[in-house]
Structure formats: structure tokens, C-alpha cells
């Protein structure tokens, strides 16, 4: 009898263990590419951030409603206009047992400011000089001059605090097995195949609902969507837009999306005579049916852009482009006539020598959703308004190198710009201040307007958010008239999920993926 009992006891334990095994909640996520590293020191793209931001946490973050929330900091305030003071969360330890304190924060920022090997995200942090320790649980983030975007800079996921012990010990290998304080810890990385994370039982914010997260690399679009349908993955990041309507109407799946901070635009190079005249640029704007591009080509993968920065970005203002420049090829021709062109016999506009108006286009290719298809469509739109377009399509590495060159031998180019910090300064300053020229910076349109320069410099230096917002609105009004670039579509951050995945909310910032509240229910 006693034997029977002990056998029963063993069986019960085994059954319980099996039960636990079965109840393991694993969320499998498919996305197109593997990161190159899981160390923000070397990797600042979305595929990297999706993973390392589960492991490494910054002091503060922006939530899906674009509000600032504390992570490793519980409180923050400006103590003067170059100094932002953070009160750190106490009692937090890294998953390797190292205690989290002011030293760890300083170590992380110092690491990126290393003279020999600066972190990839250093250039995104503007005039920040680094972190100063006030006491064990208080640090100051210090800028060289008054810097309005300082608070949003501290929300960048790249600033996730690393375990100093692990970073010292592992060196370059830290990027293959990062150690932080986040809701998940690193388990395994099989290159180009899968990255596995597991729940951090001791997470200060409470253990996550999921036991494991597996990031799978599935490069082929069709295969990614089929994996979701076959139940092999639970979530697809960057799903195929044309598949979304079918998924939305299927009760087994859910589509979660949010308008993003990226804007895809057609940009002019104002150094080139052909597009130096604002009337020509305005004619181009009238020649393009932007709504049709969004509907017919993007199929829900993007939203109509209303400004050179995305709607969730601080400082955004609707530039009212549809009202100012409605699709009207005839109006485009009239503007070109005002600019000195005449209607040629073959339908194309000609200059005073009888030469056809030809614009050269260097389109983004293989970097943004449907960029090549959009380029071909733009070419056709412009031709219908009498503007001939010649374009050079290269693979991305070549296109990118040409675009960031000191001179750009094209009248037009297309590109997506993400306002990574969600603060207008990030995009406006580097793109529109007249001295921020390539290759050092990003004013690729060679735009120069003294008023805009002054407004953008004032907005950067001010800590008064209302004043800053007003200045950015003025800049956008000016850009709507000058049109150095025509915003075409705004990014739409979307994920397709199985219906039993709960608690996921898409984030406007592409590289932020909040998996802590996510759960799988039966």
C-alpha cells in the first residue's frame, strides 16, 4: 500500500511537471532579418532593438501614446537648462546579479562616449556630454549647451543600461549575449535562424506573462505569412500589406497597427538649376496623386503623409498639402509655363532652347516598403504633366553612398526618414539648417532659409516645450511653401498576430516592441 502511495506521489509530481511543461507560454515572432549585434553600441536598427530592448532598459521610455514613462528611473527633472536629473529605481539587479546603481548608468553612457570606439548611437544624442554621478541612486545627464530634446534623447532604446560586469567580461561578445535588467533574459542566438529569450523571474516590474520569446528570421515574405497561418509563429512583424485584409476578416488573426514616425518623401536637390525654381517644385507636387500611391501601391502599409515629420512626433503640424497642392496635372503645366517652359509638340515641356524638361531621379530601392514601385509610378505621373524623368536604380548600398555624398548629381531622390527620438529637432535640425550639409549631416536638399535656421536653432536651445512647438510649426509652414521635399507616405507600424495573443499594442516608433504585458491565452 505504501508502495502504491509513493508511486502515486511520484506520478502526481511527474504529471504536475508535465503540466508545467505544457503550459510553457512561448511567443514566436517572425521578422525578415537578423540583427548584426544585440549590443546597441554596434546595432541601431529595428531588428536589433526589437530584441535587445527586451533585455536592456533605458532610464525612461515613451509609451504607445507617446507619453514619457519611467523604467530604471522613477523621477526626472531639469535642474538647469543643460542638466537633467534622474532618480534611479532602487533594489534592481541585473540578471547576472550585479546591482543596478548610478555606476551602471555612467558606465553605459561612458561606453558610448569612448574616444577609441564610440557607440553607434552617440551621434544621435546631440550635444550630450555624458552622465555625472550625484549619489548612488541619482545621476545627471549633462549637455554642452541648452538642448530641448534632452529628455527624449534619454528614451532612446540604445541607451539601455548594460551590466558593467558582463560588458567588461565579454567585450565584443556582449553583443552575442547581452545582460541587462529587462523583463527577458538572453538564452540562445542561432545566427539567421532564431534568438531565444526567457522570462526574467526577478524583473522589478513583475515577471512577464510569457515564459519564452523566440525571434525567428524568415526572409521571404510569403513564407513569413504562411508560418503565421500554419500556427508556427504567433506574430509577424512587417507583414505583407496585401495580406492584411484577409487576416483582418479571419477570426483566427488580429492586425495591430499604429501610424509611425517615418516619412517617405520625394526630395529635390536645390543646387540643381532644373529644380531651383520653387514653381517647378510646386508643379511636381501638383503632378503627383499621393492618395492614389497610398491606396493602390501601399495597400494599407502606409498612411498619407501630412508633413515632413510623422504625426506622433513632437512638433508635428499638418502642412495641408492636399489643399495647397491637389493632384492637378494641368495646374502643374501652368506653373511650369510660369517658370519659363513651353508645351512641346510631343507632350513634354520644353525650355527656351526647345530642349525637353528632364529631371534625374535617384530613388530609394530595397530600403522602404515598395520604394521601387513608387519610383516607377512617380516617373509616370511626372511624364503625364510634361516632365520627363530619367532614373538610376541601384541596390541600396550604392544608392545610400550616392545620397550621402558631398555632391549629388540628381535633381530628385526618394528616401524614408525616421524621427527616431520622436522630437522634431532630430529631423528638422539635421535636414533643414543651411549649414548641416552632407556628408557630415543630412541637408541633402541644400535648403537654405535664414528664418528657418534661426527658428530651428532657437527650438533646439529652448526648454519651453510650448515655445519649441510653435517654432516647429512655423518651420513646417515655411517648408510647405518652399517644398524642398514632398512628403508622400507616412510609415504605419503594423504586426499580424494570432488571435490568442493578448496585450500587444503596436508602437509608433518602429523599433519599440513592448512584450512585457503580452500573454497567450487558450
Amino acid at each position, binding site marked *: 500500500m505504501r508502495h502504491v502511495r509513493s508511486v502515486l506521489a511520484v506520478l502526481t509530481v511527474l504529471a504536475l511537471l508535465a503540466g508545467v511543461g505544457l503550459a510553457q507560454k512561448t511567443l514566436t515572432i517572425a521578422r525578415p532579418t537578423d540583427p*548584426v*549585434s544585440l549590443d546597441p553600441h*554596434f546595432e*541601431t*536598427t529595428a531588428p536589433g532593438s526589437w530584441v535587445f530592448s527586451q533585455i536592456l532598459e533605458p532610464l525612461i521610455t515613451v509609451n504607445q501614446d507617446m507619453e514619457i514613462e519611467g523604467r530604471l528611473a522613477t523621477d526626472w527633472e531639469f535642474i538647469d537648462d543643460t542638466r537633467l536629473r534622474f532618480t534611479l529605481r532602487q533594489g534592481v539587479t541585473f540578471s547576472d546579479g550585479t546591482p543596478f546603481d548610478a555606476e551602471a548608468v555612467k558606465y553605459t553612457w561612458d561606453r558610448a562616449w569612448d574616444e577609441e*570606439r*564610440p557607440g*553607434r548611437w*552617440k*551621434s*544621435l544624442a546631440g550635444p550630450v556630454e555624458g552622465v555625472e554621478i550625484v549619489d548612488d541612486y541619482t545621476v545627471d545627464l549633462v549637455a554642452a549647451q541648452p538642448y530641448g530634446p534632452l529628455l527624449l534623447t534619454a528614451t532612446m532604446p540604445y541607451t539601455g543600461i548594460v551590466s558593467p560586469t558582463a560588458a567588461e567580461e565579454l567585450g*565584443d561578445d556582449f*553583443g*552575442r549575449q547581452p545582460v541587462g535588467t529587462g523583463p527577458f533574459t538572453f538564452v540562445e542566438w*542561432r*545566427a*539567421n*535562424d*532564431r534568438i531565444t529569450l526567457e522570462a526574467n523571474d526577478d524583473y522589478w516590474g513583475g515577471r512577464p506573462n510569457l515564459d519564452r520569446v523566440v525571434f*525567428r*528570421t*524568415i*526572409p*521571404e515574405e*510569403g*513564407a513569413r505569412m*504562411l*508560418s503565421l*497561418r*500554419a500556427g*508556427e509563429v504567433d506574430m509577424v512583424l512587417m507583414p505583407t500589406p496585401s495580406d492584411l485584409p484577409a487576416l483582418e476578416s479571419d477570426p483566427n488573426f488580429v492586425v495591430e497597427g499604429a501610424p509611425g514616425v517615418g516619412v517617405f518623401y520625394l526630395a529635390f536637390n536645390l543646387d540643381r538649376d532644373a529644380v531651383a525654381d520653387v514653381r517647378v517644385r510646386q508643379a511636381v507636387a501638383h503632378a503627383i496623386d499621393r492618395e492614389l500611391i497610398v491606396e493602390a501601391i501601399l495597400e494599407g502599409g502606409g498612411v498619407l503623409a501630412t508633413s515632413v515629420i510623422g504625426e506622433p512626433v513632437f512638433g508635428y503640424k499638418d502642412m495641408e498639402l492636399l489643399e495647397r497642392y491637389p493632384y492637378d496635372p494641368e495646374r502643374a503645366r501652368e506653373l511650369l509655363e510660369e517658370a519659363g517652359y513651353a508645351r512641346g509638340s510631343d507632350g513634354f515641356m520644353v525650355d527656351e532652347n526647345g530642349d525637353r524638361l528632364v529631371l534625374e531621379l535617384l530613388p530609394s530601392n530595397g530600403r522602404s516598403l515598395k520604394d521601387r514601385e513608387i519610383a516607377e509610378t512617380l516617373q509616370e505621373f511626372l511624364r503625364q504633366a510634361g516632365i520627363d524623368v530619367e532614373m538610376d536604380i*541601384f*541596390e*541600396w*548600398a*550604392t544608392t*545610400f*553612398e*550616392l545620397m*550621402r555624398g558631398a555632391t549629388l548629381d540628381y535633381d530628385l531622390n526618394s528616401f524614408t*526618414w525616421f524621427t*527616431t527620438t520622436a522630437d522634431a529637432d532630430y529631423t528638422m535640425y*539635421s535636414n533643414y539648417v543651411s549649414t548641416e550639409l552632407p*556628408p*557630415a*549631416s*543630412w541637408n541633402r536638399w541644400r535648403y537654405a532659409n535664414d528664418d528657418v535656421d534661426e527658428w530651428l536653432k532657437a527650438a533646439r536651445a529652448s526648454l519651453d516645450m510650448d515655445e519649441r512647438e510653435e517654432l516647429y510649426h512655423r518651420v513646417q509652414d515655411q517648408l510647405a511653401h518652399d517644398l524642398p521635399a514632398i512628403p508622400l507616405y507616412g510609415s504605419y507600424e503594423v504586426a499580424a498576430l494570432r488571435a490568442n495573443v493578448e496585450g500587444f499594442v503596436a508602437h509608433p516608433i518602429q523599433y519599440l516592441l513592448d512584450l512585457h504585458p503580452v500573454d497567450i491565452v487558450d
Partner: protein
Amino acid sequence: MFSYLIRRILIAVPLLLGVVFIVIASFDLVPGDPAALILGEFATESAVAELRAELGLDRPLLVRYADTVVNLLQGDLGRSLTERRPVAVILGETFPLTAQLAGAAIALVLLVGIPLGLIAAMRPGSWIDNVIRVVSLAGLSMPVFWTGLVFMVIFSVNLGITPVSGTGTWRHLILPSVTLALPSIAVIARMTRSTVLEVLREDFIRTARAKGISERSVLVKHMLRNAMIPIVTVLGLQLGQMLGGAVLTETVFAWPGVGRLTVFAIFNRDYPLMQGVVMVLAMVYVGVNLLVDLSYGLFDPRVRYA
């Protein structure tokens, strides 16, 4: 035979060095700066210049080549610029996966392609010959990414008997290896058919039959051995191609092999990684060709290695 082997292996050394030079030089000609690509769209010019110096990209071509050769002779393949890991480690992870896939595919080619060709050749013009010819033409004409997706829909989504993609179990190997083998099966089947038909018309077959040797013996000993030489040559080329990484199949089935590594290395301008991949590719071709040459002796005793 032994000295022949040694000689063939030694010849491979200058070949590999030449290959490395071509790789390094061709990267110099291709536009696209690896430092700018690694740093991403928002990097400053000075950061890019610093990284170029750190990676040694600011030094002249010949200096870089000499360095690479010295390192290679010491067995050091260098570190990947993007992944910051030793190239040898990365290749050690990816090559076995490609070898698995290629091995399974070539086994299918042998087990299916050659018998199909034989059956077709035995009854030329019959209905079965016609069926095999049409099917193999279809196998050749269907693009891999299309067959791959069709297989996924049928076997993974609808029937649920194989995983859609990825690696892990033997089940994961089924769809990609069949997809990869299909065009090769078609090539080998057609090749076998035509070679066998040709050999069957030879005088020595008629002589063998006239001597009264059993048909089975005629086919196996006289016909098949002679027909094998061209078949093995083509088979070797196919295997070399598969081992070099089946880019499309690996991409469709999310198979993290050499093919995808090659594409990754090219798009990221990762010179050391590209060198490593090309070296492996060159060695695979040298090795496979050597095996093919050695196998000739097996099928045709007149072949001598001196």
C-alpha cells in the same frame, strides 16, 4: 595515385590566393562603403571615417591583400565587419547546415533522377518516357521560390505534416531538400536518358549482346559503367552548386546556410566574411572536382592517375 592527390591539392593553393585577390580587388571597384552601411543612415562623417580606419579600409589594396594572405596562411580567416565575430565561427555554423541540405538533395537526385532516366531510356517513345520527359521539363521550368511556396501551402498549411520553414528536426529538411533537388533531378534524369540511349547504340553493346551475355549484365556492367562518366560530371557540378549555397531555397525556407550568408556579406560589404565564403566555395569546387576525377577511374579502368 597518392602523388596525384598531393599535386591536385597543392594546385588549389595558388588558386585560392588568386580567388582572394579577385575578391579584395572587386570589392574595391564596387561602390558602397561598408563603414557607412554599418553605421546606418544617421551616422556622422567623422564616425564613418573612424570606423574605416578601425576596419583598415583606409589602407591601399596591396597592403590589405598582403595582410590577408599572411593571416590566411596562419589559418586566420579574420573577423566579420558586421557581426564582429570570427569568420571561421560563422562559417562553422552555416556550412554544416548547407552541407545537410545539399547532402539530402543530392541523395534524392541519385535515388530518383538516375532511375527515372534509366526507365525512360529503356522504353524510348513509350508513354512512361513521355511522362518522365514532361515532368522533368516541368521540374526544370518551375522557379524554386514558387515551388517552395506551393509545397508550403500544400504540406504545411493544408496538410500540416511538415514545418513551414526553419531548421531543427529532420522534418524541417524535407521541403527544402525536395525543392532544391527538383531541378537537379530533372537535369540528371534527362542527362541519364540521353547518355544511356547513346551508349546503347555503341558497338560494344551489340558485341556484348552478340556474345550472349545476359541482358542484365549488359546493362549493369557494360552500359551503366560507361554512361556514368558524363552523369557523374554533371552530378559533381550540381553538388558544387548546392554546397556553394542555394540562395533561393535557403531564403524561401529560412534555412540559415551559406547562400544567405553570401547575400548578407555582399549587401553589407562585409569583406572578410565575403572572402571566407568565397574561399569555402573555391575549396568545395576543388574538392568536388577532385572526387569526380577520382571516380572516373572507378567507372573506366583505362583512366590512370599519374
